[in-house]
């Protein structure tokens, strides 16, 4: 089982490394979104500072839909989904592996974006530990929910539009929770960021379980 998780995750990451879609397209896209938010709000510096954490996580939500779409299309373009079933890889392992690969890519983008908000928005990091913890915990939940919904729309026409319709409302608690935790870490609002990490962990855990239980059913259906 763990062997297959590593196998699938390694395969997805290697494909990503070869094609460099994340680095050549997604990271620039995320940077562009940050810059555009900057244009829209820069007339008012305090507003920008106040909104930094929210903008950061909204950008990550956009990036997530791209990463998930890419992760799904790897398996659907040439019938690899079917071959995975024939090979007898446990669907749970496919789910965990693909979610792990998405998580690694998102973490890489988050790393770049943290640099972005420090440079572009003048954010000051009060608690570095809290930033890291938020990114790690939130990303697990995002990747789990994203991978599950990605497989769900894989057999659907017009999946490019259906995916965000489903994914973004599901991710609403992550947007709220991670934004609050960042508010604390950047010192922009006085809240207890660590309490929010607990909520994010709950979200991650629940969606991991949900994905592990239903991924196999989805793989069989298409």
């Amino acid at each position, binding site marked *: 089982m763990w062997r297959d998780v590593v*196998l699938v995750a390694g*395969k997805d990451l290697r*494909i990503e490394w*070869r*094609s460099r879609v994340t680095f050549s397209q997604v990271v620039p896209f995320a940077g562009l979104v940050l810059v555009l938010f900057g244009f829209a709000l820069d007339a008012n510096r305090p507003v920008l500072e106040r909104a930094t954490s929210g903008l950061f996580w909204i950008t990550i939500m956009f990036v997530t839909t791209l990463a998930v779409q890419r992760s799904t299309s790897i398996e659907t373009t*040439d019938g*690899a989904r079917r*071959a995975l079933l024939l*090979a*007898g890889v446990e669907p749970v392992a496919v789910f965990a592996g693909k979610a792990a690969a998405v998580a690694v890519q998102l973490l890489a983008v988050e790393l770049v974006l943290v640099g972005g908000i420090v440079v572009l928005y003048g954010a000051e990091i009060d608690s570095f530990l809290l930033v890291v913890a938020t990114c790690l915990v939130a990303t697990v939940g995002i990747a789990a929910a994203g991978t599950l919904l990605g497989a769900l729309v894989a057999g659907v026409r017009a999946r490019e539009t259906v995916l965000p319709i489903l994914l973004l409302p599901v991710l609403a608690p992550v947007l709220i929770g991670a934004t609050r935790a960042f508010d604390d870490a950047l010192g922009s609002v006085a809240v207890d960021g660590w309490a929010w990490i607990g909520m994010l962990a709950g979200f991650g855990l629940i969606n991991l379980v949900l994905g592990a239980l239903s991924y196999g059913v989805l793989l069989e259906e298409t």
Partner: protein
Amino acid sequence: MSIIALDGVVALLGRFPALAGVDLDVGAGEIVLLQGPNGAGKSTLLRVCAGLQRIESGRALVLEHDVVSDRAAVRRSVGLLGHDTALYDDLSVEENLRFWARASRVDVDAVDGALDRLGVADRLRDVPVRHLSAGQRRRTALAAVVVRRPRLWLLDEPHAGLDQQGRDLIDGLVRQAATAGATVLLASHELDRTMGLASRHVTVAGGTITEDRTI
């Protein structure tokens, strides 16, 4: 023991009855040619035998495993070459084969030999699959089937897009597999070629079997 035993199999694609009641019994070591017009149901029949297709009614046993209730056992023992080649565009030929060998839990060292047998040149092995020609891609996909050492080979148009040398290679592979005790089911339009290869000709039309001749 019959390798494939289908009894009144009806299979739907969406709402379309791709198979409208198929009875078929194939024994070990047979090379069966499925012929028939496009849309006759040949590919669906192969998918049923691979345990990848839901069955609306009837019963299908492959290697004495039920393709619905015991599909994991069926899938493990078949090798399917479909219309899709199931290769990852951005990985090299060798990386693809190694991945599928590991995923199928078969000997990864068999990859080299399989590529040799399919005539995939050494210089191509580190090339991303994206850059292969259709024929080379098909050979690579077939190598992935060879690596699995399946007891039942399910080949959908294996000759399509291959040059003369490639076609001869496939014929050789099929004969070898049958000699070694495996069973081969192949759907093909290349009747002149496969007539001699197959030991049995099954004609599929309208989702049913209309003719079944053993040579």
